[in-house]
């Protein structure tokens, strides 16, 4: 059988906001771009983002990008790279306006400008009063942005490979990435897409945890592809738990609920956030609020018969505000909890939400790996969005910064690729042995016989991650977690498929996803075990303090021999002065 | 009544004929209620009045046009082979035109007689 091949200037893997924004930039520059997505593009998980996108438009309250930059750095617990953060916050206003021009139906203020709401971790004047920086389309901002980007790509005639699953990157001896082996889910046939540049935009890995806000598809495929290609993953110990997931189920209740005036209470009806964050209260950073809820429940002040959740109160906002500003989450609450949010409090609990770590990149979206002194880009490989770690989110991402991240760096990567394509006009010869290796990976699941099921092991892995790598961590728990994940990795060899058919075999896809999840779980637990401090989302009970002396650095996990390495945080911004690390209080 | 009628025009005419028919029906009921038809002469005299005569011609024209649009809609949905659909529609058009001619001659006869 001969392998089908196609050639493109750029291969984009993933059709969420990051992938589509980059593809749009490229298609508009007349590059031949292919977007491979394992689901139809508008099903990508960007669609589920609710609250909004940050930009210092100052439409509601005074604002400027310096304050946004400060908040983001503080939110990142000083682990974010300040050059990238400056780049993002400076670009924000232009990019939001650009989205608006592209058709995003933002909510509006009386004067016709884009509506902005307060969100967690936002301040005026470097830590002063609450700011209102989050541009919103009701509580469906991600949906509005994703659909608009897809629509503009239709207009730009981007080439889409819908329902194709990416197996592995293809690289030559010099380490240049030459495209990827993908598989049509519909036919089960492999396809080699040769590309001068490849962009990973595959999103996060929320499916690592049992209770999460993520879609079934968020299995971090790009992260694992990078690991297998010898690229380390950066800062994987930082996984964000969103404070307000629907208790016991995990569906997201946007931070916008608190931004619009909602607040949390424990079983005594106490607004407990006042104790944890006297100034910002319910709009403190997500890591702070999640930990607070966790402690409330742990110390017996949780609500409900088992005392295992706290209440989110939005009933005082009135039907009009709820219908106008938070219609979708009200629907969700009614559907999944059968609670009327206009009358009763909503049971919520922190839920796995966002992968702060990822494939190390610079602010052009180039994937970078450390060399002796510093780092160098991998030729032909880019990554943007949740799968990438620029790092603008550091140890904790601010709400409203993820939609910003994907459009800013999607566009930046697109632009850098255009430059790269100008200098590299021809396809390099494909390394057939690398193709064979990828094909072997593909055919590994043709193996027959008795064994463990994919779904079973995925469930076990998720339970382990939740138990041993959750909000609060200790050496002992993480060590146990590491052993258990290693055991899962061993047992992966015993997993077999019972269904070996070709056409739309989702069982086979889930097997690939499970492999990917196991790799990422290992990276996460190992990185968490190694970092002996508490910073942002990474809370070590045994090391409760932030330790800038030893740990103000990015971690890097390599799949080969499971090695950890470290690289410094870029504290120097592009044009302004450094924001030096200081104590982080809200 | 061209075969490739523009969507809006056909749609609009279907509505206008419907309204006309409904109004005619309402008035007819009122007239018949207030002046019960006792026999042939009364019935004939009724349609001898030019206003009613002309209105009735329009009524039938409306019925036939309305029916033509309706039949075309049904054919477009349920008869997929184009030639067959076209043939049936042609036959229906001929039938409706013939009926219309019949009505026109009939009503002119009544008007003169």
């Amino acid at each position: 059988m001969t392998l089908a091949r196609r050639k493109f200037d750029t291969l984009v893997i993933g059709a969420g906001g990051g992938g589509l924004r980059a593809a749009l930039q490229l298609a508009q520059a007349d590059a031949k771009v292919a977007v491979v997505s394992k689901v139809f593009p508008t099903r990508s998980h960007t669609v589920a983002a609710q609250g909004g996108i940050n930009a210092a438009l100052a439409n509601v309250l005074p604002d400027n990008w310096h304050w946004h930059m400060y908040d983001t750095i503080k939110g990142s617990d000083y682990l974010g790279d300040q050059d990238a953060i400056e780049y993002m916050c400076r670009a924000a206003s232009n990019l939001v306006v650009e989205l608006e021009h592209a058709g995003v139906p933002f909510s509006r203020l009386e004067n016709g400008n884009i509506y902005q709401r307060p969100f967690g971790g936002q301040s005026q004047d470097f830590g002063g009063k609450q700011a209102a920086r989050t541009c919103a389309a009701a509580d469906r901002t991600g949906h509005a942005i994703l659909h608009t980007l897809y629509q503009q790509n239709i207009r730009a005639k981007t080439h889409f490979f819908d329902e194709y699953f990416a197996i592995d990157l293809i690289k030559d001896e010099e380490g240049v990435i030459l495209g990827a082996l993908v598989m049509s889910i519909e036919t089960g046939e492999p396809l080699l897409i040769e590309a001068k540049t490849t962009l990973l935009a595959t999103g996060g890995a929320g499916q690592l945890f049992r209770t999460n806000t993520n879609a079934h598809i968020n299995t971090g495929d790009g992260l694992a592809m990078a690991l297998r290609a010898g690229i380390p993953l950066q800062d994987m110990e930082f996984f964000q738990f969103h404070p307000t997931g629907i208790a016991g189920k995990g569906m997201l209740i946007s931070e916008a609920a608190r931004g619009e005036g909602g607040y949390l209470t424990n079983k005594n009806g106490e607004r407990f956030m006042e104790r944890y964050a006297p100034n910002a209260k319910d709009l403190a950073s997500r890591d702070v609020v999640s930990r607070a809820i966790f402690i409330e429940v742990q110390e017996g002040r949780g609500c409900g018969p088992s005392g295992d959740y706290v209440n989110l109160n939005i009933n005082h906002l009135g039907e009009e505000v709820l219908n106008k500003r938070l219609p979708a989450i009200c629907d969700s609450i009614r559907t999944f909890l059968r609670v009327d949010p206009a009358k009763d409090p909503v049971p919520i609990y922190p839920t796995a939400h966002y992968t702060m770590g990822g494939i190390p990149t610079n602010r052009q979206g180039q994937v970078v790996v450390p060399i002796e002194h510093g780092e160098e880009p991998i030729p032909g490989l880019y990554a943007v969005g949740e799968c990438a770690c620029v790092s603008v989110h550091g140890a904790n991402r601010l709400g409203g910064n993820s939609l910003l991240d994907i459009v800013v760096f999607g566009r930046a990567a697109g632009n850098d690729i255009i430059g790269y394509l100008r200098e590299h006009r021809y396809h390099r010869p494909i390394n057939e042995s690398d193709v064979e290796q990828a094909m072997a990976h593909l055919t590994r699941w043709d193996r027959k016989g008795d064994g463990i099921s994919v779904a079973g092991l995925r469930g076990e892995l998720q339970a382990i991650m939740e138990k041993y790598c959750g909000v609060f961590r200790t050496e002992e728990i993480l060590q146990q977690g590491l052993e258990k994940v290693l055991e899962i990795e061993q047992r992966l060899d015993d997993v077999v498929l019972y269904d070996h058919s070709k056409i739309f075999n989702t069982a086979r896809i889930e097997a690939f996803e499970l492999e990917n999840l196991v790799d990422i779980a290992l990276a996460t637990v190992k990185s968490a075990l190694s970092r002996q401090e508490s910073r942002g989302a990474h809370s070590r009970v045994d090391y409760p303090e932030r330790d800038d002396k030893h740990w103000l650095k990015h971690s890097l996990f390599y799949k080969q021999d499971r090695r950890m390495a470290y690289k410094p945080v870029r504290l120097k911004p592009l044009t302004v002065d450094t924001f030096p690390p200081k104590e982080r209080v809200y | 009544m061209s075969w490739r009628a523009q969507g809006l025009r056909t749609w609009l005419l279907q509505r206008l004929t419907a309204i006309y028919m409904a109004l005619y029906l309402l008035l007819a009921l009122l007239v018949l209620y207030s002046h019960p038809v006792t026999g042939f002469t009364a019935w004939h005299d009724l349609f001898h009045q030019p206003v009613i005569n002309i209105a009735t011609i329009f009524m039938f024209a409306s019925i036939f046009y309305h029916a033509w649009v309706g039949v075309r809609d049904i054919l477009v949905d349920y008869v997929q082979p184009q030639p067959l659909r076209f043939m049936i529609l042609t036959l229906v058009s001929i039938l409706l035109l013939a009926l219309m001619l019949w009505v026109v001659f009939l009503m002119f006869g009544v008007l003169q007689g």
Partner: protein
Amino acid sequence: MRFLIYRYHPEKDQKPYMQAFELDGLDKNKMLRDALLLIKKQDESFTFRHSCGEGVCGSDALNINGTNGLACITPLSSLKEPVEVRPLPGMPVIRDLVVDMAQFYKHYREVKPYLVVTDPEPEVEFKQSPEERSKLDGLYECILCGCCTTACPSFWWNPEKFRGPAALLQAYRFLADSRDQAHDKRLEELDGPYRMFRCHTIMNCVNVCPKGLNPTEAIHNIKRMMMKDVV
């Protein structure tokens, strides 16, 4: 709970058939998607699309007890037994509950579902009053799940020519946008006996839309715009 599931495996079956499944001790507060996932655990070869699990991605649109809907937001307690689950009506079945949506997406692309602005763009955002913006409510929320279009008899009979409710809703979403400048062209493209005027106000689309949207109203609004332009 008892389930009857439409099965068709193109590599094995000549014809589709219904297969019975029994799930014991099912929590009726769960959604149909949860039940389907349990069935997939029993039989790995059972295939359906799903992703977000909260009704925003639009992947798991199915025909449930005769009515189209999203499995992930259909509570089991609302369903009569045996729960009959079939693929979306009128669409070519690839396998089990997975249908080929190509035709549906094509109609979506054909209405040019993007903002067209010909004037030079301002440095800042276009102004749009809350009233103008509110015209987009009930339109932009569409998740392209296909429930409406595949419930529409007019679409069953003319899937190649009739745009279908979902695409027409999107057409109106841009016609209703105060920023859009392709008004005349959009209306022109929707005239003719097939593209829009196949709609006979059956309202099956409104009946099934999982987001509570009203394509029929959108279609009527387009007609009204056309009339205004004629008069």
